[in-house]
């Protein structure tokens, strides 16, 4: 047994690609259920869910991750705790929880990092796992949202 640092990662599929988040941030995995719409929110925001007394905004990561979503099929919300808030991520299919030693994680290419949202890559036996930084993902969405809202008339006459 090596003395290297090993973290557990929850892997899941979005589109054709495989992604993972640190299992430490995962609260729960929920079946796709009715969401309350949030008018004028950024495109990636699907709506609000309600879990154990907390309001959970659910986001769709396809645009940020640059993958094409597979149409239809049952979907899952991966609820994560990020800072003080909980966020849900819409995923196509939950996969295994795997252990990844720190030294096996490779750096993504600048393009592949999608603005630092993909923080690392792990080559598993039969697939490439893109390790996500979910807090960074939310930051990117926040920046989009404020930019969108701040423009005069942006909420109405914007590019949606």
């Amino acid at each position, binding site marked *: 047994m090596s003395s290297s640092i090993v973290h557990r990662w929850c892997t899941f599929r979005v589109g054709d690609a495989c992604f993972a988040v640190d299992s430490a941030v995962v609260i729960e995995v929920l079946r796709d259920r009715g969401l*309350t*719409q*949030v*008018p*004028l*929110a950024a495109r990636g*925001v699907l709506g*609000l*869910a*309600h879990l154990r*007394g*907390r*309001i959970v*905004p659910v*986001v769709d990561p396809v645009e940020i991750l640059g993958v094409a979503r597979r149409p239809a099929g049952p979907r899952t919300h991966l609820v994560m705790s990020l*800072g*003080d*808030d*909980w*966020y849900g991520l819409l995923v196509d299919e939950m996969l295994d929880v795997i252990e990844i030693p720190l030294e096996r994680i490779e750096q993504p290419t600048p393009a592949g990092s999608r603005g630092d949202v993909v923080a690392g890559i792990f080559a598993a036996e039969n697939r490439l796992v893109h390790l996500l930084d979910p807090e960074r993902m*939310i930051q990117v*969405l*926040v920046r989009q*949202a*404020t930019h969108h*809202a701040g423009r005069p008339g942006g*909420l*109405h006459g914007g590019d949606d």
Partner: protein
Amino acid sequence: MVTDNREFIDEFLVESTENLDQLDRDLLALEAEPGDPQRLASIFRTVHTIKGNSGFFGFSKLGALAHSGEHLLGRLRDGKLSLDDRVTGTLYTMVDAVRSILHSIEATGTEGDHDYRDLGRLLAAVAAEEAAEKEAADSSVAESQSIAVSKVVESVTVETAPFSSEREASSVEPAVPDSTTQLQPAGLAVNAVLPSVTPAAPSVVAGGSLAESTVRVDVDLLASVLDLVGELVLARNQLRSIDTEDPAVLAVAQRINTVTNALQETAVKTRMQPVDHVFSRFPRTVRDLAVSCGKEVQFSVDGADTELDRTLIESIRDPLTHLIRNAVDHGIESPETRLAAGKTRAGRLSLRAFNESGRVTIEVSDDGGGIDVERVREKAVSRGLATAADAAALPAERVLQFIFEPGFSTAQAVTSVSGRGVGMDVVRTNIEAIGGTVEIHSRSGLGTTVRVHVPLTLAIMPALIVHCAGERFAVPQAAVNELLPVRRTAAGSLIEGLPHAPVMRVRGRLVPLVFLDSFLGLRAETACREDGTVVLVRVDDREFGIVVDGTRSVSGGRGCRDLLEAASLSTIVVKPIGGLLAALGLYTGATVLGDGGVVLIVDLRGLSRIADLPPIEKEVELLSDATPAEAGDRFLVCRTRAGRRIALPLAAVTRLEKYCMAEVQTAGQRRLVRRGDGFTPLHDADAILGEVVLPLPPDATVNLVVVRGDQGEHGIAVETILDVLCAEAPPQVALAVIGVVGTVALAGLATEVLDLTIPGVQSVSA
């Protein structure tokens, strides 16, 4: 075994921090009254306790420092040393040093690398001076003085660095300087002898122990209790909506309702904390700042026992600190300037907190030079915030709002204390983030008042649930004035105006409207123009109507079903929606209704800002069909009880109402009358004019003219309202008549125009 001790160390830190705050207060009080033996004894005890505790934990630096301090205090107590500026300055320095050691312990578990032996020697040196020898200003004393002063200065600039949430241990420790020059912020002269500052009585803190009547409770435990109460409220709501005739069930449901309401009120109170928690540090801050700026400031605190939700208290600390620093640094002039202007040498800075219609208002008020409105106007134009033409047309109140725009500092010099231009917009952002508002009023040459309004609590609030395009939204009930249907009737209540600027006439006022369905993009075009419900809300100085679905649309087109209401009242538990959605500025949170549905809470302020609704001034223009210049020529003519015929400019009048004298309440010096959700101060027109009249019996009615001034709304009580007349010529200014600003010819009669600036309301005397 550091981990075992951690719990005890944490307790030690909490207690010691509280003790240090008390030390600050005691030192300030002692400065005001050097002979007070109780104060001195209290200070001595505090330092002694710190010394003892530090020995227990093995904090040797802290112990040594406390020991030197204790020695100095001992000599004071024994009368062998008298209290002068040098001694107090040194003691303050010791307090700061102790504070920074405590920070270091909190952050790293150790006392840090800083060497406090020089400070220890200074304390010993000061203690060794006999009382009679203090005028022997030998170089070592002068140097230690300037070291003490510069240390105070540096601790001011470092400790209160704006909005630094993380305080690194290293950045707070004062550096013992080799030369004193590097510590002085640009442009400030530090005298060898500390100028005397006359501190006003600081906020009152009872010396008696509260230990027996309070307990310490873990914050997380309290949060759990509140969450559970919230869930109970939801369950109670569900119970209420169940249809049953069973008397046993109804009785129990009623009991549960009563108890839940009481529990909710009590639970919310556990979150409340007096603002003194934040205010208590300010006297020290002001003192240090005044010293470093070379100003003299008389600081008064009022209402420190006003309570506010715990989570909001910390949020106001930084904004208030910034406002206070602004007032001392930029607002209050130097003693020389003040004397030359005929003012008192020491500037007056007052910090006031009070409860007002469901929220807490905090005022920072100075009698300094005020803000030059014209310079702000110019700066706004030069920063591209408004065209020259638009800016010229704006009233002073609106111009001052530009100060809250990012990067907008009109300070002549950027000192290290303030003036970087990052301040006021962050103040507003931080206050608005907790659901509050901030407004600024200023009179050139007379002073500035910044008023911060903060909601009492964010957790649970009454709300109106409305429907819009199949979705539901919550509107805070506190902001709602009334609900009106949109319908064409002979009495009027129709929507007028241009398609992109719809307005509605409400009792003679034109109110701008927002169609919620098209605003939120829920429908391409609003369906509510002919059939909808208008929710009239008031936010800050804006009144507007939000048009949501009417009863017909809600009940699905079956027009005869009036049972289903367009809007329903509900007490909701406010839940945060997370930073991502809060960034939109449209929603302040969300709630879960009794049926489990998630409903967004509309941010009215954000909505009015994004929809770019005009503030109330423009409404007055719309009211009269004349051009703006002529609107100011109309006056409301009244007769006072003393028989004086007076005129009030119609532009300032918002409403006419009638009250029974029994409804007038007294609070301190002021008389108030309850209107809707809030209280409006009441002034007798005769009192303003200096006429003496007998007080009215409780059953008498009074006519109230509600006027809008820069302090908010006031009611002027008159006997009769006579007429609305047009001035035949511009009013002539009258001087030396009490309560009258001029005379105007109305219907052939010279009528006195009442002075609407109410004295005694403007400033708070210390």
